[in-house]
């Protein structure tokens, strides 16, 4: 564990020296927060929280971009093979990647919440513990997915292609870019099979409906399960060197890792509760209410609807 912590500190140090971290970790999410708020929540109030949930989810999901690219760069430049000589295993490298990403994510999340609360006049901050735990768990999950991508892809170009496909799926189908209830019915069903959907709906529930952690079981199970499976898979398929081939058996592990999402998606699809709740949150948030007209006056009152 000591080695994992040593490598985590090393990764943090490198990140702090990289301007791209500041740009992509802090500046760009804030730009999106201001932009979306100007378009969808110009009057402040709960709509800001709705926008904030999307921006937080976007920041968290962005983990897989940075980590997958970094790992591929490390592998292509021969940095990983230098570490391979040291008495550390693939698990240590992976844990340090995930831990450093998680630590780097926290300030960004805090800044986004603070800006939404004090600059954009979000009237309520929701259940902060739930927000931070979901964001943290989400960061771990998506970082781990990024590491799987890095191990599957053979080059930076392949990584970019896979990342684009995943990113667009997560962005368009999870409710980040387009509210889930506004998607065609069949796409809503598809969204239930994505871990990103559970992150977005979970953050919406925590921010808008003050739902505590104890009632976010499905979200936590989905994200946690994804993280565990993806970690197991990326440990199996981790490659120190570009020319190392992925064992055939490991490819089966990647396929097997999708099974729980299929089961969870099927369960949620048969239940129908998540989509119904997403509709309720959207309707209640953007309904014309007296509070919205006076959005600058914050209220700490709990959310009116929580049908779970």
């Amino acid at each position, binding site marked *: 564990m000591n*080695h994992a912590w040593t490598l985590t500190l090393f990764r943090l140090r490198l990140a702090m*020296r990289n301007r791209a971290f500041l740009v992509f970790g802090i500046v760009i999410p804030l730009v999106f927060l201001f932009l979306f708020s100007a378009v969808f929540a110009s009057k402040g109030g709960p709509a800001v929280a709705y926008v904030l949930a999307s921006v937080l989810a976007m920041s968290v999901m962005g983990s897989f971009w940075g980590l997958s690219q970094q790992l591929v760069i490390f592998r292509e430049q021969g940095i990983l093979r230098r570490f391979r000589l040291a*008495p550390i295993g693939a698990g240590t490298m992976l844990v340090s990647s995930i831990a450093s990403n998680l630590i780097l994510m926290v300030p960004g999340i805090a800044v986004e919440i603070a800006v939404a609360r004090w600059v954009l006049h979000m009237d309520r901050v929701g259940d902060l513990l739930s927000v931070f735990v979901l964001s943290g768990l989400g960061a771990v999950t998506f970082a781990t997915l990024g590491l799987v991508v890095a191990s599957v892809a053979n080059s930076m170009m392949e990584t970019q292609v896979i990342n684009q496909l995943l990113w667009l799926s997560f962005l368009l189908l999870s409710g980040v870019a387009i509210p889930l209830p506004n998607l065609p019915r069949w796409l809503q069903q598809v969204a239930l099979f994505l871990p990103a959907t559970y992150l977005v709906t979970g953050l919406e529930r925590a921010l808008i409906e003050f739902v505590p952690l104890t009632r976010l079981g499905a979200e936590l199970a989905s994200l946690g399960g994804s993280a565990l499976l993806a970690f197991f898979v990326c440990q199996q398929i981790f490659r120190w060197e570009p020319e190392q081939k992925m064992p055939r058996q490991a490819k089966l592990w990647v396929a097997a890792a999708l099974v729980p999402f299929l089961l969870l998606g099927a369960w949620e699809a048969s239940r129908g509760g998540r989509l119904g709740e997403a509709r309720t949150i959207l309707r209640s948030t953007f309904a014309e209410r007296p509070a919205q007209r006076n959005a600058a006056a914050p209220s700490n009152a709990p959310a009116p609807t929580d049908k779970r």
Partner: protein
Amino acid sequence: MSDAIIQVRELTKRYGDVEALRGVSFEIAAGEIFGLLGPNGAGKTTTIEILEGMRSADGGTATVCGLDPQRGGAEFKRTIGAVLQSTSLPDKLRVSEALALFGQLYDCHPDTATLLRRFGLEEKRHAFYGKLSGGQKQRLAIALALVNEPRVVFLDEPTAGLDPQVRREIYAIIEELRREKKTVLLTTHYIEEAERLCDRVAIVDHGLVIAHGTPRELKQRSAGTTRIEVSLARAVPDGELRALEGVTDCRDVDGRTVLHSTRPPQTIVALVKHLESSNNELQSLEIAAPSLEDVFIELTGRRLRE
């Protein structure tokens, strides 16, 4: 060899259709500096990377300090230090941080200041890795290979691509390892490096050890002969010059003719006469004592750097 610290037996390795190793065997004694000398693609790097535990062999066995590189785990990794041929560190990592980082990964506390001084990196201690010159990067790579005070040090082409001045600095470091009684396995395609640094050398070609021994023993294959390398205006038929006085061997290498002679003055006189009579012209002539390069040419008919 009773005190062998590295034992390699009949190593084989195939990359698709290419047979990289075809049964490499050798032993290295404790405290010895052993060189694998051969041209690019001979199988040197594959051999050393199998010994470092970076690759697995298809066949044969290899042990380092009695440990199997593939199964020795952390204990094996703590035993060895290595400079890989192609490796790097993140550009934004400082020199002193790199030493401290790898020290921590080996659970040891290297005297960073001493290491920096020893490898001439004191002034660069706060420099980012990306800002170092090739020679400085290589010195840092060697320093990192020594942070855990390994018993065995692997150096894969440690001076490849470096200018002569930096190469000499690396030689001095390797000489220091000899004084410290470290066992060193180095690969090289530089004759001078093998002759100057190695106690024993194995000449590798096409995945096989084709000769091994001390540089002196190897050169004794050509003992008593002098190398006369000439380039002629017109090529002469194969073997025509073999009949000249004193010539023991004659080969065409890279468009030049290499003669080995036991009586150089007589050979040169005979050569000039022969060229005059055949209306040919001598464009250049070099005379040298035999080197490991000659041994390689003798064994393979090719130069090391082909």
